[in-house]
């Protein structure tokens, strides 16, 4: 026993000296710090445990290829457990370590940090989180949604419905949503569209935690009998909605979900691909493994003699992590180039972010163009549908009712 302890101590001391040595060596190398907030243990852990490995893998890939313009990237990850106070602690930690940008996680967290990020002049990205009005770069200079907001998704969903039904005039659309601020956010867009396109809209709220919606679905399928159902649910509730709608005999080909109702895990939890056949979802990042960057990551693992991680199979969330990381790296690259190879400040990285132009990462990312005024990047979506045991792309990158969404953003900005 004693000898075992001694051996352990020996290993620890050796490892410690190695680590100190390695630390010294690293300090000489050019290194830039990114902060990443994540939720691996909170209520949205099913997302975080897949999304964040995607982020790390992309950064590892960039580092293994020599980094960005000669700089290695170091990611500091903090698990905020979807709570707000730890998110503030995480931000201060990133600031202390000299992070040039932050990946935010969670809608309340994004909102709570908006002011602090502006004061500290560090940009934060919030793909799929935060508020739709954060797309306005003038109003929230340091918040970058970098992906379709719920307003853009509402426009895209209705555009998809219109394509499926031919016309919207006189049709009935049911909106089944999670009863929280994020769930209610698309309502103004949907109401505007119902007036201008002449369809009837009825809303059905699902109270938290969203696993009980039998009454609402029965109301939809038996009483209201809509031509199409748009769902906007989170967590466990998307799988429940698939099961309930299917169980009550509603054709899933007449359902389209927002971006958080769409992962492989949701479909499996609902009873598998056979059960969910025909179910369509919006996406703000590509789905599947058929992208050069995903193949590069797999090749990187192979070169290291490791098998690819299981998270890679949950391509919906994994690819979103890759997308976030890729946009971060692109912003950094722009900033370094603009400075002629020097170490950029957080302010300069923000400037680099605002100069991302037609960035597509082999189709994984929409043709993303960020400017000083548009931090959302155009609000592009794809539609993927469950077909024959897998997710199939049914509609390529498109913007739904963009002028209306832009008008709404401006109207909100002038209100306050």
């Amino acid at each position, binding site marked *: 026993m004693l000898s075992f302890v001694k051996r352990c101590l020996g290993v620890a001391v050796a490892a*410690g000296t190695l680590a100190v040595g390695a630390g010294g060596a690293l300090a000489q190398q050019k290194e830039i710090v990114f902060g990443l907030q994540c939720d*691996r243990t909170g209520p949205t852990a099913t997302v975080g445990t897949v999304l964040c490995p995607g982020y790390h893998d992309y950064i*590892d890939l960039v580092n293994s290829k020599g980094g960005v313009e000669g700089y290695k990237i170091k990611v500091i990850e903090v*698990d905020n457990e979807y709570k707000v106070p730890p998110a*503030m602690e995480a931000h201060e930690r990133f600031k*202390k370590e000299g992070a040039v940008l932050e990946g935010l996680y969670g*809608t309340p967290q994004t909102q709570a*940090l908006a002011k602090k990020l502006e004061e500290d002049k560090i940009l934060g990205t919030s793909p799929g989180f935060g508020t739709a009005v954060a797309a306005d770069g003038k109003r929230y200079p340091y918040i970058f949604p970098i992906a379709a907001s719920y307003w853009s998704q509402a426009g895209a969903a209705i555009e998809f419905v219109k394509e499926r039904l031919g016309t919207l005039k006189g049709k009935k659309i049911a909106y089944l949503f999670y009863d*929280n601020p994020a769930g209610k956010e698309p309502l103004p867009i949907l109401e505007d569209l119902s007036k201008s396109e002449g369809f009837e809209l009825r809303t059905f709220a699902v109270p938290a935690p969203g696993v009980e919606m039998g009454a609402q679905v029965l109301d939809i399928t038996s009483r209201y009998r809509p031509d199409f159902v748009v769902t906007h649910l989170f967590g466990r509730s998307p799988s429940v909605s698939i099961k309930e709608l299917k169980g009550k005999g509603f054709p899933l080909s007449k359902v389209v979900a927002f971006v958080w109702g769409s992962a492989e895990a949701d479909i499996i939890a609902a009873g598998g691909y056979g059960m969910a056949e025909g179910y369509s979802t919006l996406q703000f990042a590509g789905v599947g493994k058929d992208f050069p960057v995903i193949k590069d990551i797999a090749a990187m693992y192979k070169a290291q003699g490791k098998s690819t991680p299981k998270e890679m199979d949950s391509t919906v969330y994994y690819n979103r992590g890759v997308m976030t990381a890729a946009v971060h790296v692109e912003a950094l690259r722009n900033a370094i180039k603009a400075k002629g190879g020097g170490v950029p400040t957080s302010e300069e990285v923000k400037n680099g972010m605002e100069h991302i132009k037609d960035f597509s990462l082999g189709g994984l990312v929409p043709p993303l163009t960020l400017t000083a005024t548009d931090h959302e990047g155009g609000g592009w979506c794809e539609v993927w549908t469950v077909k024959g045991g897998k997710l199939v792309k049914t509609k390529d990158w498109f913007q739904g009712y963009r002028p209306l969404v832009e008008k709404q953003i401006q109207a909100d900005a002038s209100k306050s």
Partner: protein
Amino acid sequence: MFHREAGVFKTTYATDMALYPLPVAKWTVAALLVLFVVIVPFTFQEYYLSILNLILIAIVGALGLNILVGYTGQISLGHGAFMSVGAYTAANLAVRLGLPFWLTLPAGGLMAALIGVVVGMPSLRIKGLYLAIATLAGQLIIEWTINHVPAISGGAQASIEVPRPHLFGLVINSQGRLYFFLLFFAVLAIVATLNLVRSRIGRAFVAVRDQDIAAEIIGIDIYRYKLLSFAISSFYAGVCGVLYTYYFGIANYEQFQLIVSIDYLAMIIIGGLGSVLGAIFGAIFVTLLPIVLRLLLENVGSLIFSDSELANVISGTRLAVFGALIIFFLVVEPEGLNRLWRNIRNYFRVWPFSY
């Protein structure tokens, strides 16, 4: 707190109730004040100040809950909702009427107290688990109301951005300035609670907790004191919510959901029910432990795991260790960290001549 006494024999009630049991206690308090007002803010980095700020806010909330649960013996699962009442009251006043923080802060507290009395009404008839469920209903009703009444929530997003507080032309925005801002209110809350619990009201609370029928027989109006306890506790919660609002610059009810009520209950149970120091210990423990565990695991874990693996290991391990430590401390001392601290102190009081 940190001193040893000898030959102290209290002969009157006045000396027994004194805030400073010994002259030396004044010096301890003075030393603590110097430490936290002069030394800490000028030597700590901004990051550590930000952690201290979170602890200071948590102390205010934990003290309030401890008055209700620890001193009066009424359980509440609605503490988070009372915070949101305070937060939205202050945010609406600050944005719509442009009032300064020294008006919105007490207003938020008073509104929370008012709602707290209403939610506390069932305590007049029911106790224990039943009261827990009644207050849980209060929490959910308040959440729902804020979510669905735009007049309160300020729109579909249910969040109101609040300008940074001003004082004498100074904008309180950096962590350093916020530290002084929050320290002032935390100290105020601590002093107020210390005085409350040794007053007539505090003693009535304890009497109600220990045996409400006996309390009634000796002439304590238990209905009045139960509601008063709810009011005072909710006032603290409301102030805590306002402090959160000014700290983050936004009022958002999603910050104050049920899990927050449970976190605060955990704080006072770990710290020690029915003691001011216990609430402070609990607030420090629950806020600091996850952070310390993560820093520890980051440094130790990097010897074994690669960076990307480490992230997953840290989160899981941290949660498990956090839970295990709570169980460990409660098994070692069911009365919480405060009792543990007193045991240690009592041991050293007679050291090295303990029998």
